[in-house]
């Protein structure tokens, strides 16, 4: 049996998630792994928006913030169970993305970049300033969803870090599967067509505005779910997750690994999440290295690491 490239991608991802723990020197690395998965979920969303549809957003951390705060505020103010809050937060993000996306997706290039950036900054500001509701700049506690206790009750004993590693890993697999399916669907073709040329896509009957809006809403839902998982895992959420720098990091992760491919986006998320872990030794140089990496990759490997590597391998095989 030959695997399709979609099945191969998912298989590679599943094997990586399963096998990596064998190389973990300590329990702490489960936590790092879960952080990689959470970022990767948001970045797969960016891959759909930027890689498939060619639209840029410098404000997606705003949706990460909405998803994260949904898990803190809905249980606190309305007594919603935390896991239901993940779904409600994602729905809310989708609705907000739909409302915001309609006007701003008419914009192109730098204008779209700055409008989305403005949206993200406004979300972060509201989260920081409305202290009575959101807990203010220091953040707010997030309740325990109770899923680990439930598993323990079933006789499956996992440490907290292990539980979140598995839980976020499953979400990432599901997210990657959906993104790959989307790529093969009619909507995926429409997105790639408008990426190539909006005018050409319109000529062959693609509803460009609708397709862009769909990519924006879907990527917002990914970001929101990532934010929710981040909040539930850390049991704390702060307004920084919605900030400008986080939006930049997400886009950089996607573009670094190769925004056009789901696996590339995940690779980018893994590299940029691990970078600060490696650099704690030279903490002062973190920004210098990050800036250099961003510039160097864009100049020398504009397609991103994974597509460039694949092209290199293919070139050698011939």
């Amino acid at each position, binding site marked *: 049996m030959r695997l399709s490239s979609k099945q191969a991608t998912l298989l590679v991802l599943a094997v990586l998630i399963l096998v990596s723990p064998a190389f973990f020197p300590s329990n702490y690395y489960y936590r790092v792994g879960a952080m990689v998965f959470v970022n990767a979920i948001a970045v797969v969303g960016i891959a759909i928006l*930027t890689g498939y549809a*060619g639209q*840029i957003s*410098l404000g997606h951390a705003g949706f990460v913030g909405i998803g994260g705060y949904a898990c803190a505020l809905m249980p606190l103010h309305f007594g919603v169970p935390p896991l239901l809050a993940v779904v409600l937060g994602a729905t809310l993000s989708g609705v907000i993305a739909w409302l915001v996306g309609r*006007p*701003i997706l*008419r*914009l192109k*290039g*730098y*204008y779209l*970049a*700055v*409008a989305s*950036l*403005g*949206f993200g*900054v*406004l979300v972060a*500001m509201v989260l920081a*300033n409305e202290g009575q509701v959101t807990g203010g700049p220091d953040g707010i506690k997030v309740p325990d969803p109770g899923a680990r206790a439930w598993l323990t009750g079933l006789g499956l004993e996992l440490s907290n870090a292990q539980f979140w590693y598995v839980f976020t890993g499953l979400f990432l697999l599901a997210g990657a599967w959906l993104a790959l399916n989307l790529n093969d669907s009619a909507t995926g073709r429409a997105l790639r067509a408008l990426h190539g*040329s909006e*005018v*050409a896509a319109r000529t062959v009957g693609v509803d460009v505005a609708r397709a862009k809006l769909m990519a924006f809403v879907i990527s917002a839902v990914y970001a929101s779910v990532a934010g929710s998982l981040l909040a539930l895992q850390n049991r704390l959420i702060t307004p920084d997750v919605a900030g*400008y*720098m986080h939006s*930049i990091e997400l*886009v*950089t992760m996607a*573009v670094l690994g190769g*925004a056009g491919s789901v696996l590339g986006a995940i690779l980018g998320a893994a590299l940029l999440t691990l970078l600060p872990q490696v650099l704690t030794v030279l903490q*002062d*140089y*973190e*920004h*210098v*290295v*990050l*800036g*250099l*990496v*961003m*510039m160097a990759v*864009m*100049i020398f490997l*504009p397609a991103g690491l994974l597509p460039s590597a694949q092209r290199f391998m293919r070139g050698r095989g011939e």
Partner: protein
Amino acid sequence: MSDLVPFSDLLQFLVSGVTVGAVYALVALGFTIIYNASDVVNFAQGEFVMLGGMISVAAVSAGLPLPLAALIAIVITAAIGVALNTLAIEPARGAPVVSLIIITIGASIFIRGVTQIVFGKGTHRLPPFSGDAPLHLFGAAILPQSLWVVAGAVAIFVGLWLFFTRTLTGRAVLATSNNRLAAQLVGINTGFVMTLSFALSAGIGALAGVLITPITPTSFEVGITLALKGFAAAMLGGMGNPKGALAGGLLLGLLEALTAGYLSSHYKDAVAFFVILVVLFAFPRGLYGSNPTERV
């Protein structure tokens, strides 16, 4: 608190709005110059302002007189601007917008990181150029430094206007921004125009940094906010239009000051982004922006 807002309060807000607005206008002008020469929106623009402030502070505390310190700061920053063009922008010529955004954001993070290593994380301030005894006008206090800021901005705008309209080099820059290929065909060295534009833009940013540092303390982190505000101002006026940069900067400064004064100082920084969103919804190409048709 009375319902009637005293005139002096309003005047005070207007004064601080114009002061900050002049700085935003200079940052927006820096964006505009580079955008016109290269079609790149330089997200590292705020770092030029930060460098101007930080380097002049370091030079003054090393015992140099202020004018010399300012000159050194401007020259070094201009050189950094040229290096940015040569090392990061030129090699990526023709790259998609997303790549260029990442490159200039990468440059801004890099510059910030280096500044933090060289000058530390502290907050610094320059002494005012001519004392800090405020002038009083209809009950509003005006810092002498505010006058310096506004005068500096006016001088730059007039100087640049003369440069672009009256000198051959300036016209070469304009020609290049209109049509690079046509400019090359008539013998303009467009590579030099790019270098010059980055030097000018960085130098103007640094000057803005020198002028404002006696009023607003500087640190390695101030660049991001300034870049975003200057970007907002440039967008507000219409990207690529120097007059738009001036109008956008002043308008943004005034709106911010009035918001802080009458509504909420917490949301002062939100004004820029709120304005951006509203303007872009209503006029997708900015107030003074042209509306070119897309070539297929």
